[in-house]
């Protein structure tokens, strides 16, 4: 089965409109890219699309009521909302240290959730 997919390349700021042709899920053609990085991006975006995710978690006893968090490394795109729900359940106590791991292997993705700022106690 032949399928066409269109998306914007995020390798640099140019933002080429990539057109990827798939045959039974296999990439047969990448078009629209101005440089070879576009092809690499298209392949990763089709095979294993990943995104960095950020949000906040509730903090008790801190200078602020919430602390920003992020995935340490990019997580599978289709798991982002699962991760968001998991993170929303979390409550932590101040003080928080930047880089502190808050959830190991979130949603079985092998990706850690870390605090992205220092937050002192109130």
């Amino acid at each position, binding site marked *: 089965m032949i399928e066409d997919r269109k*998306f*914007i390349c*995020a390798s*640099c*700021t*140019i*933002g080429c409109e990539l057109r990827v042709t798939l045959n039974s899920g296999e990439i047969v053609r990448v078009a629209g890219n*101005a440089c070879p990085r576009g092809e690499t991006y298209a392949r990763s975006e089709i095979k294993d699309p990943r*995104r*960095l*995710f*950020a*949000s*906040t978690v*509730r903090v008790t006893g801190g*200078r*602020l*009521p*919430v602390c*920003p968090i*992020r995935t340490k490394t990019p997580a599978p*795109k289709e798991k*982002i909302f699962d991760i*968001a729900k998991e993170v*929303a359940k979390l409550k932590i106590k101040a003080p928080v240290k*930047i880089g502190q791991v808050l959830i190991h292997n979130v949603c079985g993705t092998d990706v850690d959730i870390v605090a*992205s*700022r*220092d937050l002192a106690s109130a």
Partner: protein
Amino acid sequence: MADKKIDVLIIGAGPAGVAAGIGAKREGAENVVVIERDWDLGGILQQCIDPGFGLRTFREELSGPEYMHRFIKQAHEAGVEFRPNTMVFQIDKDTNAVWTMNKERGIECLNPSAIVLAMGCRERPIGAIRIPGTRPAGIYTAGTAQRFISMEGYMPGKRAVILGSGDIGLGVARRMILEGAEVEGVYEVMTWPGGLRKNISYCLNDYGIPLHLQTTVTKIHGTDRLEGVTVAKVDDHMTPIKGTERFVQCDTLLLAIGLVPENELSRMAGIEIHKVTNGPVVNDLFQTSNPAVFAAGNVVIVYDLVDNVTDQGLITGSNAAKYALGKIPSNVKKIPVKAGDNVRLFTPQYITGESDTIIYMRVTHPIEGACKITAEPGLFSRRLKYSRPGEMDEVRIKAEQVRALGDNLKEIVIDIKPL
């Protein structure tokens, strides 16, 4: 007061001010003080929690707080003194005295040898675009919404319309979705999106949020809480087109309609402000019309990347320190830079030839295709694949080029022309 004489006083502990502090210490200034009105350091980056900062500087994507953490640490190690919870409320025109206010220290009058303005920029509010209709609750600037969500733990609403497609508008659209709200759409009055294409992909396309170009909000509805907005297509003169109006139900309208350098203090200090950039007129040393006052970062011109702000902050801090130490001559050259074809704004406005410099500029409209950026007479020429208003272009000029031309160099003209 038994306080030591301050060599360089910096106003604002955002990315520009922190970098200026580091730059001033590196240059050998002894007593470098940064005044910050917030209780914490880092400025607006404290609320920019999505990774994407520092790619040029660190080759990795950091969140705003992570990016600032690295520079604040460097500044502490360099011996920069920070005074948080302190507000500068006046700068005296003739004496350059800086008046500060703080709960513990009270009111103080400081007399530094050099001042660096690093107050950053502010969002244009709803009053700047005069949308007809009512003024119910539920209308915020995108940055305010970002602060509510990412620092204060509140959601501004459940169903949002976003006006403006710059990177802040795109980012807040994604933030609303990830925190469980709906985003009906992003509306942009121009024919081109303001933000990077990468951000359109990651913030809008990933979540199926539509981007409506050449469309704007023409009316606000609701009495206590926002009930909806009317949107309409606009023509080439940005006038709404009759018959294209559509009612959109929403409880939140987020405005991402541009940033303006924050220069109340600069004006008070009698510093010349540029009509187009809304920032101080500066030379390539980032010296303003008052030679003891320098300006760094978004207070001068709104940059694309925090990396640019940090770079410029380091240089400005170092120049302010040189001034404080008497190493900048009072008779520096003042060669004007002029905007030629397709250049909307740029900084700096004057070149001294004292140091190598980068002139940052924005085009008036997108040029999709090969173009050439030049600085005449014969100082710089480079081919670009494209030029877009949302991405600054750079001209690099070496001090020796300026010196070589000597008194023959009366002005520098910068152009961006399609090929």
